[in-house]
């Protein structure tokens, strides 16, 4: 059986104890140059991730939500060191990655599951060979690696005698995603980044995989970073949630607090955009108009202000930073929550924060 620890305390790799964050991200920045279109087109810069800082605590599930282009997948790839950040540091359990902690050692401890279950498996390798690849790279003997692969296949609910010798195209989407999870676990990681890992699955299969992820988390003492566009799944899965907008963090806080009373108007709009699951309470007005804007030339000040119903002139000039308006509430980057910010709502705000969602859309609650 696997050597995975049952509790965090018994993990010999643990350094700073449970109070120290497993992963600390400080001021992460990644800009991509874009080629100019046309003959005289000027090349711009996609500000994919533009100053993002957050922690992932040991044993928690941190959810990351936002529209396409908000930088959530780029953040995941930066954390995996699949692309190099322009600025910012990644600290894993107290050790700076690339300085105190060698990259190869870091990569054993952080693994990722991708959205496209087919593209993330080499079509020419059997399931078994795909899973043993990582351990073999790190010097595990072949027999041991194969035994581990079979054990992991059984743990993710696939009978090794039936599946180990198969090729990816012979499996269903849900089975392939189980294989991807087994492959990610083969290096005994402490942090698993799940980038839209269940988004492409059929709903009946999605539920199975979500259950599996919860079981594995408990069994292996894992920490998850759970990226998804589906707020309902995020609400179900996460302890804390980070809302991203155009490469910045809009809101960060306890999942239950954020979903029950969002502090940032963007979070409120995102929540209100989810289908209601009740034909008698259908959405009457779209919470946000237009498409998510292009991160090539993000708006000045608060990046959300052109789509925000609370926007005032001051929002176009000052970029708000994450602030908690009251103890126990989530942190949000919104001037309306910062006293003396110049926003008219900020002056009137008295603690605790009133329900912004209802202020946003008085018509929608009809």
């Amino acid at each position, binding site marked *: 059986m696997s050597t995975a620890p049952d509790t965090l305390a018994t993990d010999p790799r643990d350094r700073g104890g449970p109070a120290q964050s497993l992963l600390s991200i400080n001021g992460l920045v990644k800009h991509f140059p874009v080629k100019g279109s046309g003959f005289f087109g000027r090349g711009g810069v996609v500000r994919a991730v533009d100053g993002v800082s957050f922690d992932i605590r040991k044993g928690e599930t941190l959810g990351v939500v936002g529209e396409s282009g908000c930088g959530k997948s780029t953040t995941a790839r930066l954390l995996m060191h699949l692309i190099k950040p322009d600025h910012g540091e990644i600290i894993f359990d107290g050790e700076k990655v690339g300085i105190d902690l060698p990259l190869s050692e870091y990569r054993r401890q952080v693994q990722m599951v991708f959205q496209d279950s087919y593209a993330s498996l080499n079509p020419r390798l059997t399931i078994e060979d795909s899973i043993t690849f990582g351990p073999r790279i790190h010097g595990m003997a072949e027999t041991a690696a194969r035994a581990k692969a079979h054990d992991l296949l059984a743990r993710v609910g696939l009978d090794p005698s039936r599946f180990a010798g198969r090729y990816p195209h012979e499996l269903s989407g849900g089975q392939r995603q189980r294989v991807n999870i087994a492959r990610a676990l083969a290096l005994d990681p402490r942090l698993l980044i799940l980038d839209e890992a269940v988004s492409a699955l059929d*709903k009946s299969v999605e539920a199975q995989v979500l259950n599996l992820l919860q079981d594995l988390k408990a069994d292996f003492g894992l920490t998850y970073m759970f990226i998804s566009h589906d707020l309902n799944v995020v609400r179900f899965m996460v302890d804390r949630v980070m809302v991203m907008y155009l490469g910045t963090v809009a809101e960060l806080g306890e999942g239950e607090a954020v979903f029950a009373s969002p502090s940032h108007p963007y979070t409120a709009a995102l929540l209100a955009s989810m289908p209601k699951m009740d034909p008698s309470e259908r959405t009457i007005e779209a919470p946000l108009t237009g498409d998510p804007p292009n991160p090539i030339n993000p708006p000045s000040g608060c990046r959300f202000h052109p789509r925000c119903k609370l926007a005032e002139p001051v929002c176009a000039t000052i970029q708000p930073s994450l602030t908690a308006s009251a103890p126990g509430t989530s942190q949000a980057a919104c001037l309306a929550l910062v006293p003396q910010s110049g926003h008219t709502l900020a002056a009137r705000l008295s603690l605790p924060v009133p329900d912004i969602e209802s202020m946003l859309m008085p018509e929608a609650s009809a």
Partner: protein
Amino acid sequence: MSNLVSIEGLTVTFTGRGKPVRAVDHVSLEVEKGSVLVLLGESGSGKSVTLRSLLRLHPEKTSKVSGRIIVDGHDIMALSKTGIGDVRGRTVSMIFQEPMLALDPVYTLGQQITETILRHENVTPEQAHARALELFEKVQIPSPERRLNAYPHEMSGGMRQRAMIALALACRPKVLLADEPTTALDATVQIQILLLLRALQRELGLSIVFVTHDIGVAVEIADKIAVMYAGRIVESGSVADILHTPRHPYTQGLLASRVERAKKGDRLKTIPGSPPDLTALPPGCAFAPRCDKTTAACREQVPSLVTGAYDHAVACIHA
């Protein structure tokens, strides 16, 4: 009769490479004038194949289609090639998940819409252009005059979807077929498109057949829902009936496994197994291998769709 679309015993078998695949198996359904029917199902349930049959879009060489499809008095299966060409766009038109595949990248959106109008109707180019502008306003594209001169790649995903809807409505069809048109969109844009479709449906008296895998989307837009599994309709009824009193074990399982209804950290109730392999369907009820109510009788005969009160129909001998 108020049924604009009526399908009877539709069966579609694909006979390309390898074993023949029966993608749709004796599907019968009706869509009333001015109502929205949602075909709900997982991958391989036959929902898109059913939809495409309404426009006879399957390649004739590799597919066998039987049954009767009547749309606004036209017998789709009996029409000639020119006959079906007249129905496409004018009586029935379709929008897709990926607008980039449906729109021609080398023409501006305005050119594509005017061209479509001119091909089907006897109007002047000026009239066609005016109509294109009106359509762009109707689908709520900001600064429509400017956007008519844009190429598809110059627009964002949501705007392209609106442009495709405008193109589909160019010849005032009576039935709009929608194949997962919001699946690739962000939730914030998805709700805008759903609201737009609902507004257009009310305003123009359209009938919409909407295919999706997402119950949430279905609840936002549907009047009636037909749940499909392995090429067959297993349950159909009003949104409220399907949502609040599902009778087929598959629908019940699907609803029970929704994360919306679960508390954080709970174990989700799940349907075991994976969606069926259409080349090797079991005899009898296709859901039997995944169902907890299965008895010997389930494995013998395919249960027929029995209609109960309020048009709530279910194909299960235990319901």
